[in-house]
């Protein structure tokens, strides 16, 4: 990590942000606030929809999937969000001199692609990923998001057991030749900081270019860039939050995600109760149902489980994959490739098959306040989050459920 020894106040400020990693709970709180702002502007944070949009655009360039209407990436808020998370993370990695092209052993790249492919299937079947159906879906008071979360948790545990088995019995799969390019040491490589400035200026120009015609996009670009940078600096990752208590027993990743969830829960509930934001375009009911997807319960269960399997094998959730792409982790480039290439295929072939089998009672929109009122739904979700916090802290102290 980069840390200049000058005493100039600006250098001190720069070192505060980029000299070392941020505590993940700081990242979680800021991401929760930015997520609330995104919702106030239009709709909450999500990743899988944008990933599928990028995939659709790639396939349409090659004329695949017939005459399907594809929204260009530069006109799709979430397609741009995906690109900007990567760019923001790229800037954060450059400022901290952590950027490098890290090429892992072959087996890791294969696991990256397979993990990405599983995440793509899980996200398309479950209508959402670790962000849309968990980090945003749970604060949106969606019953389906709770099912998705429990199923994702089950997928993570099973997948972690596989990884431990693989390490014990097939160590060669994660060993072999690796290469690192463009890396610098903390006292050298000023070019990374300069390139970081160029990337930030480009993001600002990109945002400004939309200001006159599409203010929502202009804000999405700025906030997504910030989210990428913050995720990289705090190493915010959903898979870490679910996996680490059962692997190393550590709770830092969980604390960060929990902090973000609580902030978003308060912000989202206020937006929904008062119908804040783009209410002129939508009815209050439509505002309430934002990010409450028609996946309760079987679609959420199937999708969440498959997504949990995939993100653990890949070593990065949806956002964890994207910001590690910006940091130069080639394994996660393969995960992103799996996500991008398999999402449109799954939407075309797997999702219709699943939908034709499941009755309507297994794929409807479950909005918790409809059953429990706003106070009951809020307290239920907050109670579950606090229960999780209690569990990870107790487990961190006792090591009862940690593998190592």
């Amino acid at each position, binding site marked *: 990590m980069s840390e200049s020894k000058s005493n100039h106040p600006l250098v001190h400020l720069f070192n505060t942000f980029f000299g070392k990693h941020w505590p993940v709970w700081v990242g979680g709180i800021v991401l929760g606030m930015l997520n609330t702002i995104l919702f106030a502007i239009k709709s909450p944070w999500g990743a899988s929809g944008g990933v599928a949009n990028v995939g659709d655009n790639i396939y349409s360039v090659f004329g695949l999937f017939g005459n399907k209407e594809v929204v260009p990436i530069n006109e799709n808020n979430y397609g741009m969000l995906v690109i900007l998370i990567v760019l923001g993370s790229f800037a954060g990695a450059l400022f901290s001199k952590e950027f490098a092209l890290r090429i892992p052993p072959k087996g890791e790249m294969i696991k990256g692609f397979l993990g990405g492919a599983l995440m793509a299937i899980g996200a398309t079947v479950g209508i959402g990923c670790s962000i849309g159906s968990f980090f945003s879906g749970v604060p949106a008071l969606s019953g389906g998001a709770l099912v998705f979360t429990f199923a994702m948790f089950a997928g993570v545990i099973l997948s972690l057991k596989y990884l431990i088995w693989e390490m014990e019995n097939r160590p060669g799969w*994660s060993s072999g030749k690796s290469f690192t390019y463009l890396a610098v*040491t903390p006292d050298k490589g000023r070019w990374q900081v300069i390139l970081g400035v160029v990337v930030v200026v480009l993001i600002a120009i990109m945002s400004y270019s939309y200001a006159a015609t599409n203010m929502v996009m202009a804000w999405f670009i700025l906030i997504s860039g910030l989210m990428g940078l913050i995720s990289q600096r705090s190493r915010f990752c959903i898979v870490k939050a679910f996996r*680490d208590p059962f692997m*190393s027993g550590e709770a830092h990743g969980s604390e960060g995600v929990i902090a973000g969830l609580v902030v978003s829960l308060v912000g989202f509930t206020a937006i929904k109760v008062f119908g804040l934001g783009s209410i002129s375009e939508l009815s209050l009911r439509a505002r309430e149902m934002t990010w409450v997807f028609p996946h309760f319960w079987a679609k959420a269960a199937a999708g969440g489980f498959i997504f949990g399997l995939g993100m653990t094998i890949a070593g990065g959730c949806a956002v964890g994959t994207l910001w590690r792409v910006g940091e130069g982790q080639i394994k996660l480039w393969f995960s992103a490739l799996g996500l991008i290439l398999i999402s449109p295929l799954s939407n075309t072939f797997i999702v219709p098959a699943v939908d034709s089998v499941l009755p309507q009672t297994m794929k409807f929109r479950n909005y918790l306040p409809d059953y429990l009122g706003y106070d009951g739904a809020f307290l239920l979700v907050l109670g579950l989050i606090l229960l999780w916090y209690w569990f990870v802290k107790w487990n961190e102290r006792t090591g009862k459920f940690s593998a190592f």
Partner: protein
Amino acid sequence: MEIKMTIDCKGLSCPMPMMKVAKAMKELKTGDALEMFGTDPGTKTDLPNWCTKTGNEFVEMTDLEGGITRMVVKKA
């Protein structure tokens, strides 16, 4: 300090370096030192945190050329 075991985690990303370190530490005795070479920036935070939690001693961390970091941990 005598290094008892060295593991190569270069090119690996989260969670593989931490898994390999934890597995290697199981094979060491109290007071033995483990040396690890890695390239994942996350390990620079994860390994000291894990040592704090487990009571193992995080001895040193050195940035080398080529984006490689050398870390040494002593088993408690």
